[in-house]
């Protein structure tokens, strides 16, 4: 599986998913930097990145010991769970059942919390801890995404490039605008990522079961198209007031 289709889909899935996670982490680090100072913000972020790198170096080589079909199946199942969770949330946000994620609101909440701690003797430590936690938790998701979309077909390098590009792009835009990236169409991105990860999950779980997909790698695009059409149809249906009334009955 080293054609252009899998490489592009791997890079795109990794880039878009990582972009969403990095934007969320950036909001908290920015809040710490602006409210307290950049020293705890950058120290916390750097320590979290170092811990993530250590975890990848410690556990990454173990993946090579797992037989490829087992790896495809396990990663596929995890991607189905992860992707469908994103897709479900994106659909529910799209039809207004749950609120859209608001980076400005997240920034204000974090800023308010940090201001409350301003007189605390440990204010710098607590601010650094907030940045550390944000980068660590969002970073864990990025690491999973890179491993999941890359490992099952030895494309971790391309997946890492996608994640690195997202990190660099968010950092550049963030430093330029110096405010939360609230105008990023986060739900649209999450919708696309949910579609991609669920497609990867179904494709690899099928391969793990021994399925010889027609069209080989191109089947991934067909699966993506089917899930996308179905998901947009669900959104349209749920936006129809009659459907909602019917559902409420």
């Amino acid at each position, binding site marked *: 599986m080293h054609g252009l289709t899998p490489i592009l889909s791997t890079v795109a899935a990794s880039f878009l998913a990582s972009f969403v996670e990095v934007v969320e982490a950036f909001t908290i680090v920015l809040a710490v930097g602006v409210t307290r100072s950049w020293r705890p913000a950058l120290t916390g972020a750097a320590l979290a990145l170092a811990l993530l790198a250590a975890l990848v170096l410690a556990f990454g080589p173990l993946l090579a010991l797992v037989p490829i079909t087992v790896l495809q199946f396990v990663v596929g199942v995890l991607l189905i*769970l992860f992707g469908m*969770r994103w897709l479900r949330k994106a*659909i*529910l946000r799209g039809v207004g*059942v749950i609120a859209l994620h608001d980076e400005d609101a997240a920034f204000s909440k974090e800023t308010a919390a940090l201001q409350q701690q301003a007189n605390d003797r440990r204010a710098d430590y607590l601010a650094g801890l907030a940045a550390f936690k944000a980068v660590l938790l969002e970073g*864990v998701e990025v690491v999973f995404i890179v491993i999941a979309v890359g490992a099952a077909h030895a494309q971790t390098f391309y997946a890492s490039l996608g994640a690195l590009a997202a990190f660099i792009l968010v950092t550049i835009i963030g430093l330029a605008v110096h405010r939360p990236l609230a105008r990023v169409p986060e739900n649209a991105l999450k919708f696309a990522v949910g579609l991609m990860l669920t497609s990867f999950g179904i494709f690899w779980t099928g391969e793990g079961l021994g*399925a010889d*997909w027609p069209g080989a790698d191109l089947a991934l695009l067909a699966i993506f198209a089917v899930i996308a059409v*179905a998901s947009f149809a669900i959104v349209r249906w749920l936006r129809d007031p009659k459907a909602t009334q019917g559902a409420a009955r």
Partner: protein
Amino acid sequence: MKVLRLILRELVGMFIDDGSLATLALLLIVAITAAVKLLALPPLAGGVLLLLGCLVILLYSVRRATRRRSGQ
């Protein structure tokens, strides 16, 4: 230990948000795997069933969430 617990909680939360979505998806995968391995269902048919099953589960899950909200 606190950091490890934090990471573990995040890892679990990555896959399980709505419990019924995760449970149904896992049941579907177990049933299809059993059908392929034990009942000689062709793997490709298993893959197609997996795709269709995931869509049905997604529809059920979002419809349930919408109904719950409408019922409030």
